[in-house]
């Protein structure tokens, strides 16, 4: 920061020490996730004593406890990919359409829809879980990944649409007008001139949509009963239920496996992470 104050070294040192002490437990947790997954015994909670890949056995064999056999992880991973992929695709597509209309068209009811969108953005969808169950059951989408996709997309739409609208807002009208003067139809102007300019915005929304879908737990947990439709979140939750006091190594490995896209996201977009409209995300 370019403020003119020279912070005194004493208070600065105190702040640093405090920050480091407070941040340690968090770092420790994620460090454990890594070291715990490749070792069967840890020293001081996180230092691996012996390296083993036994904890990753779920990748090549079925997990059993007593007579209980857990479903194979690969179809479940595929389910999770399918879920997050569909959520991303639908959310981006629908918010691109709606965001364009809300940003660049003038029609009666526009203001009403805008304000409602903002209220919905602040409104926590989980409170409606019971009614959502009824709706999904009614339209025959209960116990189906597609049902969870629809619910998740709907609940994320207000935020995504608002973000996309913001990106459209920043494109000057002169550019769009120029496209018409050059001979574009409305549709051509939209995909040849306008969409290419909000590519980074679309990427950001897609990324958030994917991660939100990947992390999604409560709707899959509540609306899906058949193990062939499980997602990684539900799988891991069940795994924790059975192995909690028995095999932390297995849980760490499974947790880490589940975290891979999140870690990838962190590595890719470390810089932009803090600046993208992070604040818009619901807890």
């Amino acid at each position, binding site marked *: 920061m370019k403020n003119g104050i020279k912070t005194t070294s004493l208070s600065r040192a105190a702040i640093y020490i405090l920050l480091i002490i407070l941040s340690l437990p968090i770092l420790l947790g994620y460090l454990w996730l890594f070291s715990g997954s490749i070792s069967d015994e840890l020293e001081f909670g996180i230092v691996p004593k012996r390296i083993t890949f036994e904890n990753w056995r779920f990748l090549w064999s079925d997990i059993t406890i007593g007579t209980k056999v857990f479903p194979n992880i690969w179809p479940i991973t595929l389910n999770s990919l399918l879920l997050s992929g569909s959520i991303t695709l639908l959310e981006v597509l629908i918010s691109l359409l709606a965001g364009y209309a809300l940003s660049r068209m003038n029609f009666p009811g526009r203001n009403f829809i805008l304000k409602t969108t903002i209220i919905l953005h602040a409104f926590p969808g989980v409170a409606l879980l019971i009614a959502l169950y009824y709706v999904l059951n009614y339209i025959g989408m209960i116990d189906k990944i597609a049902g969870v996709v629809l619910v998740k997309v709907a609940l994320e739409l207000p935020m995504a649409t608002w973000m996309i609208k913001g990106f459209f807002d920043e494109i000057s009208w002169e550019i769009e007008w*120029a496209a018409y003067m050059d001979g574009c139809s409305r549709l051509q102007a939209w995909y040849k001139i306008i969409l290419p300019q909000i590519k980074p915005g679309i990427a950001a929304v897609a990324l958030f949509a994917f991660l939100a879908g990947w992390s999604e737990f409560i709707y899959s947990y509540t609306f899906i009963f058949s193990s062939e439709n499980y997602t990684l979140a539900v799988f891991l939750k069940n795994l924790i239920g059975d192995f909690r006091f028995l095999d932390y190594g297995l849980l760490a490995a499974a947790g880490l496996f589940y975290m891979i896209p999140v870690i990838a996201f962190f590595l890719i977009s470390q810089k932009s992470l803090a600046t993208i409209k992070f604040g818009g995300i619901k807890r």
Partner: protein
Amino acid sequence: MEVTMMNVVKRFGNFKAVDNLSLTIKDGEFVALLGPSGCGKTTTLLMLAGIYKPDAGEIIFDDKIVNDVLPKDRNIGMCFQSYALYPHMTVEQNIAFPLKLKKLPKKVIDEKVREIAAKFRIEHLLKRYPGQISGGQQQRVALARALIKEPNLLLLDEPLSNLDAGLRISMRAEIKKLQKELGITTVFVTHDQTEALSMSDRIAVMNKGKLQAIGTPEDLYMRPKNMFIAGFIGNPPMNFLEVGYIMDGDRVTLKGKNFEISLPEEISRTFIKKQNNERIVMGIRPEHLSVGAEAPNTIKGEIYVVEHLGKDKLVDVKVGDDRIKVLTGQDFEGKMGDTVNLHLDFKNVHLFDAADGNSMKRVA
């Protein structure tokens, strides 16, 4: 192509952006739409472009009503204030874009792009993106893009306002020359009267959505139809003084609070008559006043401040409560507080009705 606007109205909600505008632009003519910001000039331009549809009235190209013709079917070239180059395309792609949409063969497009790039001296920039070239270069690219499809009408929206002063003057000449060369009908929106006066064949002055006057630069400067035009055209602006009107035989006498001016007979005759003692407004430009010896029929005042304008001096003279600006030569040596006598160039005295602001000049 001849462009006609007949009784055109454009509303935004309850606001009338363009109010009953009628205007004809002859084939090959260069017309400036001049006015303060918010006067409806850009709205007018966008209606010609087809971006806005008029709420009433007709827009006619040659003899075809085009109100419902889409912009893409009007064959118009347009150049925007911000240039509006497509940031994700190279200069070459930008220029070629209108032809690509026409589905011309690639060979023809390449040929034409090369040709026009040479004309605008931007061949070396073709592979760059708009963000990588200067404002003046962007301007030329925008012009090239507007002209490559050989439009029937060229629309320019404040094309020079984002350039720095030096470049602006050279582009002024360049655009004017280009327009004459191509003989393309051109409408040009600006708020800068110097641009309008120096570039265009005719100027249409707009204010509050209404057409105030249209005429050659000389017309508007020498024979302003009303006080708005008189005050708007000319820099420094015309002085306005409220006076009483007295008709004495064939001579008109103008009675101010602190002065009295009698106009010569032949000048008096050029104005329509009014009732004695009616309040009217006298207008005179700073360049039509001079400082001279004490004499009858002059205005006596005190120098308030002297501004140096480079080749001239602008003298601000206090006459009672009024302030009159006078343009003098560089050799004028009056100082603040000096008493001076202002001589009027009677041929260039303008009189306006105080109520409606219209000129009292008889129409010849």
